[in-house]
């Protein structure tokens, strides 16, 4: 049984995008326990969590490939295909970056300096809240699509993106603060460890940057045609 009209309809790529998003969030959720275990010197647990993260990141990759495979150029979508693919790319950077951080934490048995702890965990929370905001925006896209891009819904999402940019900016500021504290510990912490921590801070900042880029792509997707 072949029905011509069935060829016209395609499943919305937003569904697999949402699956990917949930997996990415799950990957991200392992970051905090990982740092907590590191702070307590619980390295076995750190290794264990890293393994879980690797596995999740791989699953995210597979979902991402599936989304790309199902987006031929002949599709008619209410936004540019390239903007959507950009969103997929940026969203996939979330689990990627989490994985990179997990790798860094397993390279060496790092100690978390006492002076760093409080500020660092605050920084981590800001990174998480930036990513969560990006995720919230992707979820809100459902309403934009349901309303066929009504002005009201578009403005709602634009506000959320403004808030996302704010959060990213605050995260960056916090990153500077953490880096300063770290560099002031030059006499207590070995150069190698300082180097490692700087890399961790940089990767965490990058995580927030990619979340912000997700917002930028969505801004383009909902812009007037």
């Amino acid at each position, binding site marked *: *049984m072949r029905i*011509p*009209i*069935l*060829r016209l309809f*395609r499943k919305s790529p937003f569904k697999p995008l949402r699956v990917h998003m949930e997996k990415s969030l799950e990957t991200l959720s392992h970051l905090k326990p990982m740092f907590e275990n590191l702070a307590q010197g619980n390295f076995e647990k750190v290794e264990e969590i890293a393994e879980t993260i690797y596995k999740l990141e791989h699953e995210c990759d597979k979902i991402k490939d599936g989304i790309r495979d199902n987006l031929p150029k002949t599709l008619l979508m*209410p936004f540019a295909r390239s903007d959507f693919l950009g969103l997929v790319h940026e969203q996939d950077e979330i689990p990627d970056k989490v994985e990179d951080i997990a790798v860094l934490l397993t390279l060496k048995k790092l100690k978390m300096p006492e002076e760093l702890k409080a500020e660092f965990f605050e920084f981590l929370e800001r990174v998480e809240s930036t990513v969560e905001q990006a995720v919230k925006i992707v979820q809100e896209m459902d309403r934009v699509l349901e309303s066929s891009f009504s002005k009201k819904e578009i403005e709602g999402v634009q506000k959320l993106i403004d808030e996302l940019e704010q959060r990213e900016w605050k995260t960056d500021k916090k990153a500077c603060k953490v880096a300063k504290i770290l560099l002031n510990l030059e006499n207590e912490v070995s150069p190698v460890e300082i180097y490692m921590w700087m890399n961790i801070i940089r990767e965490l900042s990058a995580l927030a940057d990619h979340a912000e880029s997700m917002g930028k792509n969505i801004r383009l997707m909902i812009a007037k045609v």
Partner: protein
Amino acid sequence: MFIWLILVLAGAFYMAFVLGGNDAANAMATSVGSKAINYRQAVIIAAVANLIGALLVGGHVTHTIGKGIVTLEPFLKNAKLFILGMFASLIAAGIWVQIATHFGMPVSTTHSIVGAVMGFGIFAGGGKYIYWMKFLKIVASWIISPFLGGVLAFLIFYFIKKVILDAENPILRTKGWGPFLSSLVFFIIMLSVIYKGLKLKVPLFQSILISLSFAFFGYIITWSFLRARKRRDGVYMQVEKLFAILQILTATYMGFAHGANDVANAIGPAAGVWSIIKGGLSAKESAVPIWLLGIGGIGLAIGTALFGYKVIKTVGEEVTEITPTRGFAAEFGAATTVLIFSKLGLPISTTHTVVGAVIGIGFARGISTLNLGIIKNILLSWLFTVPFSAGYRA
């Protein structure tokens, strides 16, 4: 002679059967896809509306296929050749549709039957037996119909977006504008039936008046249906649920228009044969007998009821990216187009028109993903269908 007539009628009935089983699913796709109605309801609506559409408005296109493409005059002395030719046309069209469907081409039964009848005309008497102007008009209508369907669907959906989806309170707006939209459907259906339809000779002005009162009746009914609905879903969800009620109407409209146009694919050749048998040059002008439309309509209805449910069920499961607001606009655009061409006596493809209408919604940013690859297939099927059916027939 009588035996031959029975044979052609049997062929016509079979064709109607196949059409009802297959094409009804394309007509009902956006209704079952949006879950406005389930597949059982779709089968009932399609079967009943097909029959009514065929009976009330089916005559124009039937006239064209039976007597408008190939001249009848030369066959008055050789009726057997004509009957045989028309019978073979039915078979040729049927086979081509089977083959093309097997290869996944969105071939239209309409195009196949027109091609087959053409082929018979050319075979019997070269180019001189063909009404070329009529044929060109038909071909032009194939190209225009998907576009017109798309434009109408786009406009209706744009209207829905502007007055309802963009508004502060979309639910209230739906309850206010919904009855107006539905009265529009009532108006067009009624107008198509009484103006230059049936055997009543109602002048245009009176037709409009009668249709307007019918539309008012539709307005009141829809208003009372929408008024009572209260639900607790999200705003757009509620709008969709209200439109699901309205879409029952457009599904019927679609079935009606489908019956009015496609019944001719099955009984057109038989109508030609009937005229020949009755004899006389006046036969060309005579109306298509209502019992013949009835046979076609019943064939469509039975085909849908017996085989269509399976196809419609599949479509309902596979097509998920359409909602009642979008489905309403698509069906409104497609059905209006099909009905207009039916009144003009031009046989067009319901399926292609529906495809055009859905793409129109896509351009209004109403659907998240559509595969435009289907357009290439449609173009290919345009190029191949007529020559093939014609050639096969010859």
